[in-house]
């Protein structure tokens, strides 16, 4: 396997990451003890807590963060989240609905050999293995990922534009949509035994969305192969849509005429639409989408239209009522 070499200077230094986490932990603890003290619960305002809340407390002496996480930022200048953050807070219901448990449950999942069957309305249907896919190129793309649950991360993916693969198989003119399917393996994926959802996971894109240069098939993260919890060995990344559109561990890609029904559309049709574009103006029927928490940050941020990619993608939806096509 070959991966593009990312200079080690670009990867979040471990000690910075550690001290940041220690700060978060300390800050959280102090806030909580303050809450408790305010409620009249005695004996919980220990001095240890206030000491550890100092940023960098307990860090290696002299390791004062210079310019934290320099180099690895998205185009808006926001730093990438750490490998640990990205790979230990995952929505992958095939394993479990507990985001912090996915990594552990996905560990050791066999991703070799792996086949991705590409077919449907194409001239040259073909099955690719992962090495075939890597031949489409491997570039780093630092994208924001905005979850419908109102948290977000900045993630340095490695992958190639989906359009390259589609051009290879030559979609027929009848093809209007692309339908993606995750592996179905209830033996090893206990979440798929949950009958509330219709497995396997299905997602879809309109042809022009699929052909857009931002739309990525990712095979790596931080210059390393994707870990299973992040959707190994190959997943979709559509940065201007809510995270659930970015389907993981793909085994099948079909070009189709009809709009595919995704798992979430089937589960709650009036709550999850086909488009699922990040849009602070259009709320989920029960939750607001106006703000989000960037993982690692204390304050909430305002959510950006199309997750900050409006300039590149807004034209795809010109004239569409985004409230109706949510």
């Amino acid at each position: 396997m070959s991966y593009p070499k990312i200079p080690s200077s670009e990867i979040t230094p471990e000690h910075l990451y550690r001290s940041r986490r220690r700060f978060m932990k300390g800050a959280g603890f102090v806030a909580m003890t303050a809450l408790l003290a305010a409620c009249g619960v005695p004996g919980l305002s220990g001095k240890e807590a206030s000491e550890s809340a100092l940023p960098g407390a307990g860090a290696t002496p002299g390791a004062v963060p210079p310019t934290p996480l320099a180099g690895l930022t998205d185009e808006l200048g926001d730093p990438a989240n750490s490998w640990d953050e990205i790979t230990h807070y995952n929505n992958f219901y095939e394993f479990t609905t507990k985001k912090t448990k996915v990594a552990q449950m996905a560990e050791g999942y066999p991703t070799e050999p792996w086949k991705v069957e590409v077919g449907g309305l194409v001239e040259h249907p073909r099955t690719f293995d992962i090495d075939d896919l890597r031949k489409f190129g491997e570039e780093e793309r630092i994208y924001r990922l905005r979850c419908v649950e109102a948290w977000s991360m900045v993630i340095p993916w490695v992958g190639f534009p989906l359009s390259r693969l589609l051009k290879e198989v030559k979609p027929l003119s009848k093809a209007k949509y692309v339908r993606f399917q995750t592996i179905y393996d209830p033996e090893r994926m206990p979440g798929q035994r949950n009958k509330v959802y219709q497995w396997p996971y299905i997602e879809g894109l309109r042809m022009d969305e699929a052909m857009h240069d931002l739309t990525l098939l990712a095979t790596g993260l931080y210059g390393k192969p994707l870990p299973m919890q992040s959707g190994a060995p190959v997943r979709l990344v559509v940065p201007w849509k809510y995270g659930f559109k970015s389907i993981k561990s793909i085994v099948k890609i079909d070009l189709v005429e009809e709009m595919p029904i995704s798992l979430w559309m089937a589960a709650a049709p009036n709550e999850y639409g086909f488009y699922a574009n990040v849009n602070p103006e259009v709320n989920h029927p029960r939750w607001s989408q106006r703000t989000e928490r960037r993982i690692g940050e204390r304050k909430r941020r305002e959510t950006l239209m199309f997750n900050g990619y409006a300039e590149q993608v807004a034209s795809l939806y010109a004239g569409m009522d985004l409230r109706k096509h949510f």
Partner: protein
Amino acid sequence: MASRIPNRITIFRVLVHLAALAPLAVLLWDMWEGNLSVNPIQDITFRTGKAAMVLLTFSLAATPVVIVFGFKGARQVRRALGLYAFLYAALHFLTYAWLDYGWDLYLIRLEITEKLYVLVGFAAFLILIPLAVTSTKGWQRRLKKGWIRLHKLVYAAGVLVMLHYIWVQKADIRQPLAWTLFLALLLIVRLPPVRRWFTRRRTRKAVSRRSSRPATKLETSN
């Protein structure tokens, strides 16, 4: 009482207090150890909310437990359970308003009007405030009959909490539905005809147990 050996009810009460404080202890421990997720505020929100919901339901289970099983100890932990529920509800609310939204009232107002579940949860919390304040014996005396009427509001809080709990789910609402069903059963047991049926059934059983036992053993076994 001659001896200071704790009786069953005292042990039960101690266990209830420990169990009610356990979620808080585990939360603080996990915060200290850094075991929370990378989205710690959400973690704290979920945990305090869950604890509040469970304890409120258990406080509403106290009377039904007395009705169905005749276990008087349950009544003695009812107020404590209610107050613990309020403690967790207060932490839950403060986590949301303070840690999560930093008292940004503009944003909070927007969210409250846009997200129905926040409004419902907030309403439940508002109901619990006067109930917690008037939970003392003094207030019970001062309010006389009004106290009971006021404290009946806890049923409304329970229903609102379940609605809040159902509405925050993405799609799989089996767990909140199970709790809602449990709450519904607890409310049904309180209906006068149901309550009378259980009471009659218990007295009948007790009577038949006593009469079937040899008279001499009756004194020593209790």
